[in-house]
């Protein structure tokens, strides 16, 4: 009896240790870069006419920054709910394969399904990259605990960052506000290029940069959807024809 109790308390202690290590992993260079991106997002959300509560709510429920930036972009363009939802959904499909890659890394035969569904909400680029790097140093049975610490910390810290920056943004001099709003485009202009797995991703990025403003003038109601679909499909077509010419 006592033996079992002891083993259980030992396991719980071990869980606390690995949870704490996950929390600490959030305070790293990638975590810091992410905070700067959320500083920019707070400025963007304020500019789009959102309230502080709405911006913090959006940070918690959407979490992935590309989806949020597309959502705010759709709100700014005056897109209707179906067009906005479709644009956000299309910009977030990539989350599915990321989760597919991450889940087997932290699953054990005894992991309940609801734990995996709950933890999948924390999946976005930064936590995913950190987890994929760190998991080999984490015992398999502790990985869900570790990821819970890491993911929850990143989400909560950045909800706090959004709230604080949102609250003080109105009192900043115009030049500082301008620099703040410029953080989001600068962050994505650089990180998007680096995260492209293949040449096609970079082609899609350049085409999207050109077609975004074009469709903003031509089709303001559906600018993001039109630019994403046309540029994405064109980049994919170029990718297929290059593969056919180069390979096989």
């Amino acid at each position, binding site marked *: 009896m006592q033996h079992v109790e002891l083993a259980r308390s030992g396991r719980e202690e071990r869980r606390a240790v690995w949870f704490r290590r996950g929390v600490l992993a959030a305070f790293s260079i990638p975590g810091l870069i992410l905070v700067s991106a959320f500083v920019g997002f707070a400025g963007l959300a304020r500019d789009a006419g959102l309230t502080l509560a709405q911006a913090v709510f959006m940070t918690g429920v959407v979490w992935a920054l590309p989806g949020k930036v597309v959502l705010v*972009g759709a709100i700014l363009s005056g897109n209707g709910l179906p067009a906005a939802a479709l644009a956000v959904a299309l910009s977030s499909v990539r989350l599915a394969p990321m989760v597919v890659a991450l889940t087997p890394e932290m699953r054990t035969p005894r992991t309940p399904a609801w734990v995996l569904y709950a933890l999948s909400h924390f999946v976005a680029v930064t936590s995913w990259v950190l987890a994929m790097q760190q998991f080999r140093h984490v015992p398999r049975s502790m990985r869900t605990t570790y990821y819970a610490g890491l993911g929850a910390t990143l989400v909560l810290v950045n909800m706090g960052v959004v709230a604080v920056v949102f609250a003080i943004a109105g009192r900043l001099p115009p030049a500082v506000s301008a620099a703040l709003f410029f953080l989001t485009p600068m962050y994505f202009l650089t990180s998007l290029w680096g995260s492209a797995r293949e040449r096609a991703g970079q082609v899609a990025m350049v085409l999207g940069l050109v077609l975004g403003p074009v469709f903003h003038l031509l089709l303001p109601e559906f600018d993001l959807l039109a630019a*994403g679909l046309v540029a*994405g499909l064109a980049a994919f077509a170029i990718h297929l024809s290059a593969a056919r010419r180069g390979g096989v």
Partner: protein
Amino acid sequence: MTFTAIDAWWWPYLFILVAGWLATDFWRFLGVYLGGRISEDSQLIVLVRCIATALVAAVIANLVLFPSGALAATPPLLRAAAGLTGFAAYLASGKSVPVGIVAGEAVLGAGLLLA
């Protein structure tokens, strides 16, 4: 049915839940459900990545060219120059995101100080 279409406190939250939460967590939950059944390298995933990247790039270009608020008061040429310089610095530094961000912000800041 835009973000400001209904004048009630709950409408923006519902908008965010449907267009934001549902549109993103749907894919995360699908990822858990599918488990190991789709591969990162399949052609379908390449297409998905292309569309997602182009969508975000379109938003970024619109934020630089048609901004609102404080950024709207800055000259468009300065914003474009800052973006291009930051991107060039990112490539020159061996793809360092912080270097790219700092370089772009420096050009924007210098331009605003001199104006």
